[in-house]
Protein backbone atom coordinates (compact mmCIF):
# COMPACT_ATOMS: atom_id res chain seq x y z
CA UNK A 1 0.00 0.00 0.00
CA UNK A 2 1.38 3.48 -0.86
CA UNK A 3 1.76 6.18 1.75
CA UNK A 4 -1.32 8.07 0.54
CA UNK A 5 -3.33 4.88 0.45
CA UNK A 6 -2.17 4.08 3.96
CA UNK A 7 -3.37 7.50 5.14
CA UNK A 8 -6.74 7.14 3.50
CA UNK A 9 -7.23 3.52 4.47
CA UNK A 10 -9.07 0.82 2.63
CA UNK A 11 -12.24 1.49 0.69
CA UNK A 12 -14.21 -0.17 3.45
CA UNK A 13 -12.66 2.07 6.06
CA UNK A 14 -13.35 5.15 3.99
CA UNK A 15 -16.95 4.11 3.58
CA UNK A 16 -17.27 3.51 7.30
CA UNK A 17 -15.79 6.93 8.13
CA UNK A 18 -18.21 8.56 5.74
CA UNK A 19 -21.10 7.07 7.75
CA UNK A 20 -19.86 8.43 11.08
CA UNK A 21 -20.87 11.99 11.86
CA UNK A 22 -18.89 13.72 14.59
CA UNK A 23 -21.60 16.34 15.05
CA UNK A 24 -24.24 13.66 15.59
CA UNK A 25 -22.09 11.82 18.10
CA UNK A 26 -21.45 15.04 20.02
CA UNK A 27 -25.16 15.78 19.90
CA UNK A 28 -26.13 12.35 21.24
CA UNK A 29 -23.49 12.59 23.96
CA UNK A 30 -24.69 16.01 25.06
CA UNK A 31 -28.29 14.86 25.03
CA UNK A 32 -27.59 11.88 27.26
CA UNK A 33 -25.34 13.99 29.48
CA UNK A 34 -27.95 16.69 29.92
CA UNK A 35 -30.61 14.05 30.62
CA UNK A 36 -28.45 12.58 33.40
CA UNK A 37 -27.76 16.09 34.69
CA UNK A 38 -31.47 16.82 34.70
CA UNK A 39 -32.12 13.71 36.80
CA UNK A 40 -29.55 14.97 39.30
CA UNK A 41 -31.06 18.46 39.29
CA UNK A 42 -34.55 17.12 39.97
CA UNK A 43 -33.08 15.13 42.86
CA UNK A 44 -31.45 18.32 44.14
CA UNK A 45 -34.70 20.29 43.94
CA UNK A 46 -36.60 17.51 45.71
CA UNK A 47 -34.02 17.45 48.47
CA UNK A 48 -34.20 21.22 48.87
CA UNK A 49 -38.00 21.13 48.98
CA UNK A 50 -37.92 18.50 51.73
CA UNK A 51 -35.48 20.60 53.74
CA UNK A 52 -37.68 23.67 53.35
CA UNK A 53 -40.74 21.67 54.38
CA UNK A 54 -38.88 20.42 57.43
CA UNK A 55 -37.94 23.91 58.57
CA UNK A 56 -41.41 25.25 57.81
CA UNK A 57 -42.92 22.53 60.00
CA UNK A 58 -40.33 23.23 62.68
CA UNK A 59 -41.17 26.96 62.67
CA UNK A 60 -44.89 26.18 62.80
CA UNK A 61 -44.37 23.92 65.79
CA UNK A 62 -45.71 20.81 64.04
CA UNK A 63 -42.49 18.92 64.67
CA UNK A 64 -39.60 19.22 67.07
CA UNK A 65 -36.03 17.99 67.21
CA UNK A 66 -36.11 17.83 71.00
CA UNK A 67 -36.83 14.50 72.58
CA UNK A 68 -39.34 14.76 75.40
CA UNK A 69 -37.92 13.66 78.69
CA UNK A 70 -39.73 10.57 79.97
Amino acid sequence: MGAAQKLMGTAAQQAKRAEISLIKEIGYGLLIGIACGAVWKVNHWNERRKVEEFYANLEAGKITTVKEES
Partner: protein
Amino acid sequence: MTDFLFSRAWMDAPEAWQLGFQDAATPMMQGIIDLHQDIFFFAIIILVFVLWMLLRSLWHFYYSNNPIPERIVHGTTIEIVWTVVPSIILMFIAIPSFALLYSMDEVVDPAITIKTIGHQWYWTYEVALWVNFSLYYSDYNQSDEQSLAFDSYMIPEEDLELGQLRLLETDNRLIVPANTHVRMIITSADVLHSWAVPALGIKCDAVPGRLNQSSVFIKREGVYYGQCSELCGVNHGFMPIVVEAVSLDDYVQWVSNKLE
Protein backbone atom coordinates in the same frame (compact mmCIF):
# COMPACT_ATOMS: atom_id res chain seq x y z
CA MET B 1 -29.27 10.64 54.30
CA THR B 2 -31.77 7.83 54.71
CA ASP B 3 -34.99 9.56 53.72
CA PHE B 4 -35.56 7.39 50.70
CA LEU B 5 -35.63 4.22 52.79
CA PHE B 6 -36.97 5.29 56.16
CA SER B 7 -38.59 8.35 57.62
CA ARG B 8 -36.18 11.23 57.64
CA ALA B 9 -33.31 10.78 60.07
CA TRP B 10 -31.12 13.83 60.61
CA MET B 11 -27.42 13.12 60.57
CA ASP B 12 -25.29 15.41 62.67
CA ALA B 13 -22.52 12.89 63.22
CA PRO B 14 -20.59 10.65 60.82
CA GLU B 15 -22.36 7.46 59.74
CA ALA B 16 -20.82 4.17 58.67
CA TRP B 17 -20.50 3.97 54.87
CA GLN B 18 -21.67 7.55 54.57
CA LEU B 19 -21.43 8.88 51.01
CA GLY B 20 -22.66 12.47 51.14
CA PHE B 21 -22.59 15.42 53.47
CA GLN B 22 -24.00 15.46 56.97
CA ASP B 23 -27.36 17.23 57.11
CA ALA B 24 -27.08 20.99 57.25
CA ALA B 25 -28.01 22.82 60.41
CA THR B 26 -26.92 26.30 59.33
CA PRO B 27 -27.63 28.43 56.27
CA MET B 28 -23.91 28.35 55.50
CA MET B 29 -23.82 24.56 55.30
CA GLN B 30 -27.01 24.52 53.26
CA GLY B 31 -25.33 26.93 50.86
CA ILE B 32 -22.28 24.68 50.62
CA ILE B 33 -24.46 21.65 49.85
CA ASP B 34 -26.42 23.60 47.23
CA LEU B 35 -23.18 24.75 45.58
CA HIS B 36 -21.97 21.16 45.52
CA GLN B 37 -25.19 20.00 43.85
CA ASP B 38 -24.89 22.81 41.28
CA ILE B 39 -21.30 21.92 40.42
CA PHE B 40 -22.09 18.20 40.37
CA PHE B 41 -24.75 18.88 37.75
CA PHE B 42 -22.04 20.08 35.35
CA ALA B 43 -19.69 17.30 36.44
CA ILE B 44 -22.29 14.66 35.54
CA ILE B 45 -22.88 16.19 32.11
CA ILE B 46 -19.16 16.29 31.39
CA LEU B 47 -18.57 12.77 32.69
CA VAL B 48 -21.39 11.24 30.66
CA PHE B 49 -20.42 13.17 27.52
CA VAL B 50 -16.73 12.22 27.75
CA LEU B 51 -17.57 8.57 28.48
CA TRP B 52 -19.95 8.54 25.50
CA MET B 53 -17.31 9.96 23.14
CA LEU B 54 -14.69 7.53 24.46
CA LEU B 55 -16.88 4.46 24.13
CA ARG B 56 -18.19 5.46 20.72
CA SER B 57 -14.62 6.00 19.53
CA LEU B 58 -13.73 2.52 20.73
CA TRP B 59 -16.85 1.16 19.05
CA HIS B 60 -16.27 2.79 15.67
CA PHE B 61 -12.51 2.54 15.46
CA TYR B 62 -11.71 -0.77 17.11
CA TYR B 63 -8.67 -2.44 15.56
CA SER B 64 -10.60 -5.07 13.69
CA ASN B 65 -12.89 -2.38 12.23
CA ASN B 66 -10.18 0.16 11.62
CA PRO B 67 -6.69 -1.31 11.38
CA ILE B 68 -5.19 1.91 9.98
CA PRO B 69 -5.77 4.81 12.34
CA GLU B 70 -6.36 8.40 11.22
CA ARG B 71 -3.59 10.92 11.44
CA ILE B 72 -5.47 14.11 12.14
CA VAL B 73 -3.26 16.78 13.68
CA HIS B 74 -5.42 19.92 13.40
CA GLY B 75 -9.04 20.85 13.79
CA THR B 76 -9.38 24.58 14.37
CA THR B 77 -13.13 24.71 14.87
CA ILE B 78 -13.29 21.92 17.39
CA GLU B 79 -10.30 23.29 19.28
CA ILE B 80 -12.05 26.62 19.64
CA VAL B 81 -15.26 24.91 20.77
CA TRP B 82 -13.59 22.77 23.41
CA THR B 83 -11.82 25.83 24.82
CA VAL B 84 -14.78 28.21 24.87
CA VAL B 85 -17.39 25.78 26.21
CA PRO B 86 -15.45 24.86 29.38
CA SER B 87 -14.88 28.58 30.01
CA ILE B 88 -18.62 29.16 29.84
CA ILE B 89 -19.21 26.23 32.20
CA LEU B 90 -16.67 27.70 34.62
CA MET B 91 -18.51 31.00 34.52
CA PHE B 92 -21.76 29.24 35.45
CA ILE B 93 -19.96 27.56 38.34
CA ALA B 94 -18.28 30.77 39.49
CA ILE B 95 -21.52 32.71 39.92
CA PRO B 96 -23.03 30.65 42.78
CA SER B 97 -19.56 30.05 44.18
CA PHE B 98 -18.76 33.73 44.62
CA ALA B 99 -22.27 34.42 45.86
CA LEU B 100 -21.73 31.90 48.67
CA LEU B 101 -18.21 33.14 49.39
CA TYR B 102 -19.31 36.73 49.84
CA SER B 103 -22.40 35.76 51.82
CA MET B 104 -20.08 34.09 54.33
CA ASP B 105 -18.41 37.44 54.98
CA GLU B 106 -21.63 39.29 55.66
CA VAL B 107 -21.53 41.21 58.90
CA VAL B 108 -24.11 40.14 61.43
CA ASP B 109 -24.65 41.45 64.91
CA PRO B 110 -23.92 38.48 67.16
CA ALA B 111 -25.79 37.93 70.38
CA ILE B 112 -22.95 36.05 72.01
CA THR B 113 -19.25 35.60 71.39
CA ILE B 114 -17.51 32.31 72.07
CA LYS B 115 -13.76 32.04 72.17
CA THR B 116 -12.41 28.61 71.28
CA ILE B 117 -8.85 27.83 72.22
CA GLY B 118 -7.12 24.72 70.92
CA HIS B 119 -4.67 22.91 73.12
CA GLN B 120 -2.78 19.67 72.88
CA TRP B 121 -5.14 17.84 73.05
CA TYR B 122 -8.43 19.41 74.11
CA TRP B 123 -10.51 22.51 73.50
CA THR B 124 -11.24 25.36 75.88
CA TYR B 125 -14.37 27.43 75.44
CA GLU B 126 -14.87 30.90 76.85
CA VAL B 127 -18.30 32.40 76.55
CA ALA B 128 -18.53 36.19 76.79
CA LEU B 129 -21.98 37.37 77.75
CA TRP B 130 -23.47 40.82 77.40
CA VAL B 131 -26.43 41.53 79.66
CA ASN B 132 -28.28 44.45 78.09
CA PHE B 133 -31.11 46.31 79.73
CA SER B 134 -33.77 46.93 77.15
CA LEU B 135 -34.49 50.44 75.99
CA TYR B 136 -37.92 50.13 77.52
CA TYR B 137 -36.46 50.35 80.99
CA SER B 138 -33.78 52.93 80.43
CA ASP B 139 -32.85 55.61 78.01
CA TYR B 140 -29.44 54.12 77.37
CA ASN B 141 -27.93 50.63 77.16
CA GLN B 142 -26.09 49.29 80.11
CA SER B 143 -23.90 46.29 79.66
CA ASP B 144 -22.35 44.00 82.20
CA GLU B 145 -19.77 41.59 80.85
CA GLN B 146 -19.23 38.27 82.46
CA SER B 147 -17.51 35.22 81.06
CA LEU B 148 -17.44 31.56 81.76
CA ALA B 149 -14.75 29.14 80.64
CA PHE B 150 -14.45 25.38 80.59
CA ASP B 151 -12.34 22.66 79.00
CA SER B 152 -13.66 19.94 76.72
CA TYR B 153 -11.84 16.61 76.70
CA MET B 154 -12.72 13.51 74.70
CA ILE B 155 -14.42 10.75 76.68
CA PRO B 156 -12.09 7.72 76.44
CA GLU B 157 -13.52 4.55 74.94
CA GLU B 158 -13.52 2.68 78.25
CA ASP B 159 -15.69 5.39 79.84
CA LEU B 160 -18.34 5.53 77.13
CA GLU B 161 -21.94 4.79 78.01
CA LEU B 162 -24.31 2.84 75.78
CA GLY B 163 -25.34 4.91 72.76
CA GLN B 164 -22.42 7.30 72.95
CA LEU B 165 -20.19 7.74 69.93
CA ARG B 166 -16.61 6.50 69.97
CA LEU B 167 -13.93 9.21 69.52
CA LEU B 168 -16.61 11.89 69.27
CA GLU B 169 -18.05 12.43 72.74
CA THR B 170 -16.68 15.01 75.15
CA ASP B 171 -17.09 15.55 78.85
CA ASN B 172 -18.30 19.14 78.45
CA ARG B 173 -20.29 20.17 75.41
CA LEU B 174 -20.35 23.65 73.97
CA ILE B 175 -23.91 24.81 74.53
CA VAL B 176 -25.21 27.50 72.22
CA PRO B 177 -28.68 28.92 71.67
CA ALA B 178 -30.44 27.91 68.46
CA ASN B 179 -31.70 30.56 66.04
CA THR B 180 -29.18 33.04 67.40
CA HIS B 181 -26.20 34.66 65.73
CA VAL B 182 -23.07 33.43 67.45
CA ARG B 183 -19.59 34.80 66.84
CA MET B 184 -16.79 32.25 67.15
CA ILE B 185 -13.27 33.46 67.80
CA ILE B 186 -10.82 30.64 67.33
CA THR B 187 -7.22 30.50 68.40
CA SER B 188 -4.65 28.14 69.79
CA ALA B 189 -2.46 28.06 72.84
CA ASP B 190 0.27 25.90 71.34
CA VAL B 191 0.33 24.41 67.82
CA LEU B 192 -2.02 24.62 64.86
CA HIS B 193 -5.44 23.06 65.34
CA SER B 194 -8.67 23.45 63.40
CA TRP B 195 -12.16 23.74 64.80
CA ALA B 196 -14.47 21.88 62.46
CA VAL B 197 -18.11 20.86 62.73
CA PRO B 198 -19.38 19.51 59.40
CA ALA B 199 -23.11 19.83 60.12
CA LEU B 200 -22.62 23.53 60.87
CA GLY B 201 -20.45 24.07 57.80
CA ILE B 202 -17.62 25.51 59.82
CA LYS B 203 -13.94 24.73 59.69
CA CYS B 204 -11.61 27.37 61.01
CA ASP B 205 -7.92 27.07 61.74
CA ALA B 206 -6.79 27.67 65.28
CA VAL B 207 -3.48 29.49 64.91
CA PRO B 208 -1.33 30.44 67.89
CA GLY B 209 -1.00 34.19 68.17
CA ARG B 210 -3.94 34.83 65.86
CA LEU B 211 -7.67 35.25 66.33
CA ASN B 212 -9.79 33.86 63.52
CA GLN B 213 -13.41 34.84 63.44
CA SER B 214 -16.40 32.93 62.12
CA SER B 215 -20.11 33.28 62.63
CA VAL B 216 -22.69 30.58 63.12
CA PHE B 217 -26.50 30.57 63.06
CA ILE B 218 -27.87 27.18 64.01
CA LYS B 219 -31.38 26.66 62.70
CA ARG B 220 -32.47 23.66 64.73
CA GLU B 221 -31.80 22.29 68.17
CA GLY B 222 -29.59 19.25 68.23
CA VAL B 223 -26.17 17.86 68.98
CA TYR B 224 -23.46 18.36 66.38
CA TYR B 225 -20.15 16.54 66.30
CA GLY B 226 -16.82 17.56 64.85
CA GLN B 227 -13.15 16.77 65.12
CA CYS B 228 -9.86 18.63 65.11
CA SER B 229 -8.87 19.13 61.49
CA GLU B 230 -5.24 20.17 61.60
CA LEU B 231 -2.52 17.73 62.55
CA CYS B 232 -1.39 18.70 65.99
CA GLY B 233 0.46 15.79 67.48
CA VAL B 234 -0.08 12.26 68.66
CA ASN B 235 -3.64 12.84 69.91
CA HIS B 236 -4.84 14.90 66.98
CA GLY B 237 -7.58 12.34 66.37
CA PHE B 238 -8.70 12.40 69.98
CA MET B 239 -9.82 15.96 70.57
CA PRO B 240 -13.36 16.10 69.22
CA ILE B 241 -15.88 18.92 69.32
CA VAL B 242 -19.49 18.63 70.45
CA VAL B 243 -21.86 21.55 70.00
CA GLU B 244 -25.32 21.34 71.53
CA ALA B 245 -27.88 23.84 70.29
CA VAL B 246 -30.70 24.43 72.73
CA SER B 247 -33.62 26.81 73.08
CA LEU B 248 -32.88 30.26 74.43
CA ASP B 249 -34.59 29.44 77.72
CA ASP B 250 -32.48 26.33 78.19
CA TYR B 251 -29.39 28.29 77.28
CA VAL B 252 -30.09 30.96 79.87
CA GLN B 253 -30.68 28.19 82.42
CA TRP B 254 -27.36 26.57 81.49
CA VAL B 255 -25.50 29.85 81.82
CA SER B 256 -27.07 30.53 85.22
CA ASN B 257 -26.09 27.08 86.40
CA LYS B 258 -22.54 27.54 85.17
CA LEU B 259 -22.12 30.90 86.78
CA GLU B 260 -23.31 29.70 90.18
